């Protein structure tokens, strides 16, 4: 579930309010959006993908807020992982983050070969 919006890195663009598919956030006039309906969060990580400032963090547990500490998460390098791995925005074209999705069928093929062998 949605854990936090880091107030110091959020630039108040309100983009997450717009793109969240389940209307978790409410816009505010100037500051970070308000997490208005956390119970509607479907733990899809899409807000992280669309946050250019890497200011949003979603916890893996789909049923409860776990209370992750923003500073610990940031120091562990876990902010923005979704966006980076997708090669989204400024990461587009970075040779470390290619779109290898098409290789999935090769992976399944390898698994079948290993199982048969």
């Amino acid at each position, binding site marked *: 579930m949605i854990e936090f919006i880091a107030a110091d890195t959020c630039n108040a663009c309100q983009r997450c309010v717009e793109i969240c*598919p389940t209307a978790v956030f409410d816009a505010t006039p100037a500051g970070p959006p308000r997490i208005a309906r956390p119970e509607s969060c479907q733990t899809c990580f899409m807000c992280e*993908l669309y946050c250019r400032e890497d200011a949003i963090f979603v916890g893996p547990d789909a049923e409860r807020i776990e209370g992750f500490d923003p500073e610990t998460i940031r120091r562990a390098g876990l902010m923005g992982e979704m966006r980076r791995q997708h090669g989204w925005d400024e990461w587009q074209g970075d040779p470390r983050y*290619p779109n290898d*999705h098409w290789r999935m069928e090769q992976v399944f093929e390898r698994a079948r070969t290993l199982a048969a062998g």
Partner: protein
Amino acid sequence: MTTAMTDGFDLQTDVLVLGGGMAGAWAAIGARRAGAAVVLVEKGWVGTSGVTATAGPGHWWVPPADRPAAIARRLAQSGGLNQADWMQAILETTWDNLPTLADVYDFPRDDQGVPRYRALRGPEYMRALRRKMQALGVTIIDHAAAQGLLRHGDGSIGGARGLRVPSGAPWRVAAGAVVIATGGTAFRSHLLGAHNNTGDGYLMAVEAGAQLSGMEFTSVFCVAPARTTMTRTMSFAFATYYDADGAVLPIGGPDITRPLAQALRRGPVYADLSRTPADIRQRVPTISPNFMLPFHRWGIDPYQDRFPVTLYGEGTIRGIGGIAVETRDCATAVPALFVAGDAATRERVAGAISGGGNINSAWALSSGLWAGRGAARHAATVRRVDGGDPPPAPEPTSNPASGPASNLGGQRAEILAQVQRVMLSYDSGLWRDGATLRADLAGLNDAWQQLGQARGDIAGRELMAMLATARLSLTAALARRESRGIHQRLDYPETDPAQARRIRIGGLTHPVATPEPNPLELTA
């Protein structure tokens, strides 16, 4: 015209598309290509909402020369009910149209420099479809939940109405034809990206007099790390499963669902991914960028550490039931109403087993394009008949939203839990029997009576749709007195050739199952 997130609106168009996932987007594209003015409304946001946006659909993608063999293979394994000509048609349509996204999707090239079209990453795919629709001039309205269809005096559909999310402001669109592309439902099982998929389109269609088909084929489950939503299964091809004592469980091969479900009935099950080859481990994050997120955040190394797993029901999303398709352009039996994607039955292409990602994706693309084109052609005839005048004011097909939100919050939670118990538990889904189905259905019918007074808001309507879908599904499951494909009954364990026919289902107060008159010829 306003599309500010919270405002109501009142519009008129040729084609109205309900739902902005993959099928809805392709429907809008198909309708625009046929020259119609198109409005698409989406409950969430086109690009992030639905099960395509959070996954990575591979399409059924077969070169022309290999198609006869691919179709024959599928017919042989899918328990009948599907048709070679429809399968051929989705293969052709997918092959011809997926590359037309090259201006909005950066198709990667393989190690030989050949562009790979078959499988697309979800968020990138939906972003591309949004851009394509914008370039074609589709009016996209996000955060607008459809609550019901509008119907003319002659019974034909003339638009839809609904509420903005979350403001609740009312909206209404009059249209010459409507495409329902609202997806399937997994009954809020935590299947990734499925929260908005509450079966709204099934409810609207049945209210308008359409039938559903294939609703007995709903027993599909997906493995995931427990408590997460991460139903990305690729890496589980290398999983080793353990019981609570650390003993390795015999779970593997092409179908892990039944052995895993049996193990989970006995107690917690754990997995690790230690058999994953090193080169694949390295590529997992660039193949499925979201798969490792839960592990990293919990400090788990899945290649060494064991983690608890669960199975999530996928309902009609990976199941195959939906609104009955009457013609090649995906018209329903209700005039001016068309259907695409998981909202439609996929029996004609998938048969009696799950279409998996491949066939379902090819179906979503193809049925979208066909329904969009069919709706555009229908809307053009409506325009001619009316001589350019607006159609007569359509009437709602269900009671319009009225009054404050129900105060039956606790009761609603109980009803959802009841629906989930029936539709998502392994016992009810994987090992069916008549007595249990009848008891479950009686319970859901009671819940339907209770819910009758409490449907005036978005959440109430969603619950009503899930409950209606569950009742229709159980009614179909009772009517199929045999085991076929993913519908397996303990009391009728054999497949009965006389029942090689699709089962139609309709009605909300008293759902009725009607087998189609003629058994389908088994091609296999």
